[in-house]
């Protein structure tokens, strides 16, 4: 069978689907090829055990670009995100911290821990919003090549400069600090309560193999201030049916514009003729031709697996080989017989929000220390979400699913034996840690799914299991993502484009790379 398309998108992750939707909407004949039996990539829901649906990898939504929601009419296609009410942290002394979304409730709870912090947190938020507001427009820019920006790049840089100039002097100083400091040092200038600092600092280390005290992590705090939900800054929410629902909504939009989606279709190689991409070869040998090929896979797959190194300039090959993946997060998904009980929790309403195992700054930094040299944290940071507290679609009535995002783990953990043993040891450490705070947990577990970074790579295809398709640190963002000179969604191969989280604005459920990638493809007249 040989069939020809205007465009082939490799990978049915949410970014690949987004790219396909925009191309199809612009009238292109588009085919999405997904390796797995279903679309979604790291934004996927699977019924791993009868009646229990797991939001297998990602679990909460905030960074999804509002323009994508509008332009692809995602609400019509099933996007339904319910905001989370609170972040709840059990402390080791039996006390708790509840960071409410409601500002009045938040102020009162923080006052219980520190009156100073109750005043400082709104000021901290004010400062962060100011910076985020000035920096946020870059989420919508195509990164220029700073060495030779060209006309459009120069305009982008000057516009960006203008945004930065809009910051007053004090805020500008804060921006400089945020670019260089560790998350914890930066937060310590504002917040005195240890457990609050621990919780706030977490945003700086998600998806990176760095600790809250590692320099450079402060910037990632800012990244989280760029999210929004229904216009509310930084608010996170849960998609009905798990984050697979987001991918399904985008897939449905893409199909409504005429895109074709083929699952169980793993691309082995991109066909290159005279420096130009002309099609793909699937595992099994089938060849499919198209004028344009876009890869929604991560940079390692995009450049090193799907192409031959001889087709690429040396410096790009070496930049991709140096690009930091080193997955540091794992996931444990549990099916539960009843709702769990946290011993420190005073109000079961907190179960509807997020529960965070990060009782102190030292706890979180210790978790990093354990994993720094390879291995996993003996007592890890865990981000717990029980979507079934509000969503009736994911488990039989009365039963629950619990999503546990875990840091830190390592890609190779040979000291624990083979891959199966590594997974078991990791899963047990997570469940043991959770049991310290939820004494009834082990009695109510019906089924479990444990994913180490290696498993994430095997299942989802993310290299070394990095959840963001490459760490989100300053040296790997904007015009460095994935490599200087190749951050504008193009590649050295003509008509071969990038549209996954390995390009700006990066990882997370954002649809940003997918949309911007599609825009560039269309701009080139492809």
């Amino acid at each position, binding site marked *: 069978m040989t069939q020809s398309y205007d465009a082939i998108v490799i990978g049915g992750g949410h970014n690949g689907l987004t790219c396909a939707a925009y191309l199809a909407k612009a009238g292109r004949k588009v085919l999405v090829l997904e390796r797995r039996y279903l679309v979604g990539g790291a934004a996927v829901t699977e019924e791993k055990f009868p009646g229990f649906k797991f939001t297998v990898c990602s679990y909460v939504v905030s960074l999804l670009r509002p323009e994508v929601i509008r332009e692809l009419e995602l609400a019509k296609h099933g996007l339904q995100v319910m905001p989370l009410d609170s972040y709840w942290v059990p402390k080791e002394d039996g006390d708790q911290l509840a960071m409410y979304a409601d500002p*009045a409730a938040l102020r*009162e709870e923080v006052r219980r821990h520190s*009156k*100073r912090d109750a*005043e400082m947190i*709104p*000021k901290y938020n*004010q400062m962060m919003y100011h910076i985020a507001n000035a920096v946020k427009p870059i989420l919508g820019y195509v990164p220029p090549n700073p060495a030779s920006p060209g006309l459009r790049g120069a305009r982008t840089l000057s516009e960006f400069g203008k945004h930065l100039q809009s910051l007053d002097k004090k805020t500008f100083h804060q921006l400089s600090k945020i670019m260089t400091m560790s998350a914890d040092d930066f937060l310590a200038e504002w917040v005195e309560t240890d457990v609050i600092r621990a919780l706030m600092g977490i945003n700086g280390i998600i998806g990176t193999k760095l600790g809250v005290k590692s320099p450079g992590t402060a910037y990632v705090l800012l990244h989280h201030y760029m999210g929004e939900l229904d216009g509310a800054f930084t608010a996170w929410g849960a998609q009905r049916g798990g984050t697979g629902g987001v991918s399904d909504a985008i897939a449905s939009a893409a199909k409504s514009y005429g895109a074709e989606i083929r699952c169980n279709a793993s691309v082995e190689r991109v066909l290159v003729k005279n420096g130009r991409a002309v099609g793909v070869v699937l595992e099994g040998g089938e060849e499919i031709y198209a004028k344009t090929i876009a890869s929604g896979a991560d940079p390692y797959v995009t450049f090193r697996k799907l192409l031959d190194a001889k087709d690429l300039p040396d410096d790009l090959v070496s930049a991709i080989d140096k690009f930091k993946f080193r997955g540091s997060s794992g996931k444990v998904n549990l099916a539960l017989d009843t709702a769990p009980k946290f011993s420190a929790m005073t109000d079961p309403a907190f179960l509807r929000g997020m529960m965070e195992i990060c009782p102190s700054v030292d706890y979180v930094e210790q978790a990093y220390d354990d994993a720094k040299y390879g291995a996993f944290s003996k007592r890890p940071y865990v981000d717990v979400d029980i979507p079934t507290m509000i969503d009736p679609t994911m488990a039989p009535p009365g039963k629950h699913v619990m999503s546990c995002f875990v840091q830190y783990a390592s890609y190779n953990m040979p000291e624990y034996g083979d891959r199966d043993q590594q997974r078991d040891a990791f899963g047990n450490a997570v469940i043991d840690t959770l049991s310290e705070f939820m004494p009834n947990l082990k009695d109510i577990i019906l089924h479990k799914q444990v994913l180490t970074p290696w498993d994430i790579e095997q299942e989802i295809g993310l290299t070394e299991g990095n959840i963001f398709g490459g760490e989100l640190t300053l040296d790997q963002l904007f015009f460095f993502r994935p490599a200087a000179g190749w951050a504008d969604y193009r590649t050295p191969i003509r008509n071969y484009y990038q549209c996954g989280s390995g390009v700006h604005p990066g990882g997370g459920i954002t649809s940003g790379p997918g949309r911007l990638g599609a825009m560039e493809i269309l701009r080139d007249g492809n």
Partner: protein
Amino acid sequence: MPRQTPFHSRTNALCESQNWVEWSGFFSAQTYEMDHIHEYNAIRLGAGLFDVSPLFKYFIRGRDAVALMNRVITRDASKCGVGQIFYTAWCDDEGKIIDDGTVARLGDDFFRMTAATPTLCWLQDNAFGMEVEIEEVTDAYGALALQGPTSRDLLQQLTDADLSSLKYFRMLETKLAGVPVNISRNGYTGDLGYEIFAEPGQCEKVWDALIETGVAYKLMPAGMVALDMVRIEAGMLLLDADFHSASTAMFEVEKTSPYELGLGWMVNLKKDHFVGQGALRRENARGPATCTVGLEIDVLALEKVFVQNSMPLQLPYQSWVDTLPVYSDSDQRDHIGRATSGTWSPVMKKYVVIGRVKPQYAKIGTQVYVEQTVEARRYAVPATVVKMPFFDPPRKRG
């Protein structure tokens, strides 16, 4: 969930409407009856009793107490005598207002400060290097506001202190129904009135005595809906309505200075350095960008608009807080400012509005136009700049 003030057992029993809102972490009654109008009338005719315990309260004590107050507030704290109270603003470095409140001098080196927003941190940070002790006492005192023409006579029944000699913005320590209290003569209603501070364990006793004796003085417990009407009549500004705190405002354009808020009289540029002084000095020299004014809506013109729509005149039954455009012309071409809160005043039979306009339109008697929506259509209704406070009875100070 909000907490209960020390008066909650009593306010809850009387709160027929069960119409509660959150105020600084506490339950606060919007109205006691289903409708606010009796409460409003009680304040202007007899007396209203408000639970104002949620106000943030601080004690500032020590050798440098005056120095700290002077560093923070815009007025000259050294001029505040013992037993006296200042209404004052405090600003950030840019001279933008953070909050307003009262500063009471309890002793030579002892002040009590009330604020609408948490201020502990701000005081602590400004106290760097000073010999001063700052204590938050929000929970250590319940507070009541007893406001209205009969408030003095009512209060006098319950205390031995001679209230006729207690002047406006002064206070005294005494016993009320046997309970030690601090009584100050000030309030947020523009009427004769008092604020009463008592320790939490004794609060119910104070409340009971006031309510019981109050029957003869036409006292009613009153909620925030009635309070907002009377504070607008009194020309008093409300945080997050007529202005925003510079320390939490998300955008630069939301910040205002005391000069812009008509509070220039409380900025003492001559005293030693205080936070924001430099910026305020510069602003004073060049003049503020906007001026807060009282506006009186031309009700006859408003009536015409209703008649055009085949309706009888409708007046706001309670106060509103909003941001309505203000124009210099009826064609709504020249935008000159905003109206931030307003109410029909049953006691004055006037529709009064607080707003901010460009300085050239701030002169008493100037005619401007305030946007009003009638039957989903927008109209620019004439209004006149008038003196604030709108309602200023001699008994307030007398």
